[in-house]
């Protein structure tokens, strides 16, 4: 965690978090030794393929893990100031409820099912205000109208009395955001907030989130499997694979100097103008299921560089630059030097062209784009 010592106050600090399935004989870890932190006003992106534990990780930050799971090691600290940091992993349900919606709020993936169909939009937005801030009905309604304006919802007064099914997906997601930011939380967690929406709406929702971040200084954790979307919004990116963070760094680190073969694979699967016309690269294979995860590097079965040691031992997250860490034997053992050469070479050329192919050698897209 050397690289994360930023001057700004950490609002969220997760240390070596381990989340396991309950009541099994073998200990199956859904999240396995994750350390992450988010600074005040910062936007952290978490990327990774489906099933790698992003949602579970985000739910743990609210103490909302599914019944079948429990935290089995590690810490989650939250606090807008250092002296009032609270250990979320230790709090009692009652104390957690004071934080949920008030300090840490969440926007979920599917706006179609995440709202209650039998309660009015107005009720659902004002609920948190009345609970956490003690607003009266009228005060809360007035505030809700403000919130609707803020997230760009038209005819806010009317909306109060409407029901979710009367709104489109994009409008509902705006409502979800309005609910989340109602009490002006310090941290907003958005778990795939745009995945269920079509592309133009996606851009609008992102714009709303960007505005909130800029106006209110809210810290954001944005979860997605879409690196492109993350790049647009985030300051820092954590790449997650099979319950572990495999690489973490600034947007520039991840996009210009990716080190982990998985990160490189993800980057190569983004459709981009420079790749236009070429066959899109995708990482062969799939995220191993919980019981298939091994003692070694979980990416080994899909990694073209997998070595003997990769299957025996788990690579540690190690610094490869300022604020840039990765967990791969290739990088640690021989790649650091190699990678450094590459970086200097990149910079010297000054092309700005992203050369993921250097690492992937003559494979796949690399060959195709030549």
């Amino acid at each position, binding site marked *: 965690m050397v690289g994360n010592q930023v001057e700004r106050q950490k609002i969220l600090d997760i240390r070596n978090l381990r989340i396991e399935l309950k009541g099994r004989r073998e200990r199956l870890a859904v999240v396995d030794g994750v350390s992450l932190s988010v600074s005040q006003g910062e936007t952290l992106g978490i990327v990774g393929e489906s099933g790698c534990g992003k949602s579970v990780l985000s739910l743990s930050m*609210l103490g*909302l893990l599914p019944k079948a799971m429990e935290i089995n090691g590690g810490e989650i600290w939250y606090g807008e100031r250092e002296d009032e940091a609270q250990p979320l992993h230790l709090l009692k349900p009652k104390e*957690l*409820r*004071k*934080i*949920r*919606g*008030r300090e840490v*709020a*969440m926007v*979920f993936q*599917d706006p179609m*099912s*995440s*709202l*209650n*169909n*039998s*309660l009015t939009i107005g009720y659902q937005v004002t*609920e*948190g205000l009345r*609970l*956490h801030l003690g607003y009266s009905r009228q005060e809360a309604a007035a505030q809700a109208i403000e919130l609707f304006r803020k997230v760009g919802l038209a005819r806010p007064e009317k909306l109060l009395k409407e*029901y979710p*099914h*009367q709104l489109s997906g994009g409008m509902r997601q705006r409502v*979800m955001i309005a*609910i*989340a930011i109602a009490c002006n939380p310090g941290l907003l967690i958005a778990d795939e907030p745009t995945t269920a929406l079509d592309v133009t709406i996606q851009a609008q929702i992102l714009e709303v989130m960007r505005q909130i971040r800029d106006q209110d200084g809210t810290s954001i954790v944005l979860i997605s499997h879409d690196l492109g979307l993350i790049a647009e919004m985030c300051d820092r990116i954590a790449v997650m694979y099979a319950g572990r963070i495999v690489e973490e760094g600034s947007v520039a680190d991840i996009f210009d100097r990716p080190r982990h073969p998985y990160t490189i694979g993800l980057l190569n699967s983004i459709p981009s103008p420079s790749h236009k016309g070429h066959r899109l690269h995708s990482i062969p294979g799939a995220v191993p299921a919980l019981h298939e995860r091994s003692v070694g590097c979980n990416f080994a079965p899909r990694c073209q560089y997998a070595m003997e040691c990769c299957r025996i031992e788990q690579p540690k997250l190690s610094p490869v630059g300022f604020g840039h860490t990765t967990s791969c034997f290739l990088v640690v053992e021989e790649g650091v030097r190699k990678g450094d050469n590459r970086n200097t070479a990149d910079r010297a050329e000054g092309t700005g062209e992203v050369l993921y192919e250097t690492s992937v050698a003559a494979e796949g897209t690399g060959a195709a784009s030549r």
Partner: protein
Amino acid sequence: MNYYARRLVTLFLTVLFVVVLTFTAFRIIPGNPALAILGTEASNEQIALLEAKLGTDRPLLVQFGHWLGNAALLDFGESLRFSEPVLKLIVSRVPVTLSLALLALVISVCTAVPLGILAAKSHGKKWDALISIGTQFGLAIPSFWMGIILILVFGLTLRWFSVSSYVPWSESPILALKSIVLPAVALAIPQIAVIVRYLRTTMLEQLNLDYVRTARSKGLSERSIQYIHVLKNALLPVITIVGINFGELLAGSLVIEQVFTLPGFGSLLITAIGNRDYPLVQGLVLLIAVTVIIINFIVDLSYRWLDPKIRLK
């Protein structure tokens, strides 16, 4: 055609169907009203004379048309057995049966909803198990038997309630209430069991839905999630069940009135059937059918009111 017009047409057709059914059914089963009135010693002439007077010698279709025409004007004829207008007889019994069924309904809903919530809340724990055993019994025990047990325990042993002395509402509401509490409880018990199980299942289903997670993420207490967010969604199917079961409740009250010797529709209907008192039977059946149909209609309306999705259409 709009929804309500369509509903009204089906409503009317259902009533007509019920009427035709009872009219024919009671004429197909053996038995002769004239014979029932005059006794087995009556001569053939006497019977023929009475049949002519009653109109039962005319062709079925004519009788039916005649009856239907009058019924449309709320004239259900005169009871053969009691020689009184059917309508008057029925109206005199309405308070007993109606209050019994309504009280049973109130008791069942007021007990079942909290129990169902409790069972769902303590899913897999002690209370859930106890309630589940209780509902098993409630479902298995027939209400007339439950009625007899209640009479034995509360009426004869503990003497909390008067048994077999019905006091009309007009005379003393308190005594009237006392005389229908036990039968209402007996009627309510199987209903409670059904509603509790239904509510428990729907609430547990609802608790797994995404909107509950959203509600939790707002910091709401489990209490307000259950009572506000989940209950409103879970009540929807429960209301349907309650409505559908109201017919069953009426049918049950016909039986339970016999156990408690209450002078309601039950005793009237059984006397009427025994005496082949066609006008009275038909009048009663028509009234019960119409009541059930109207209740279902009300359920439908409340369903539309509760579910905003349906309300708009």
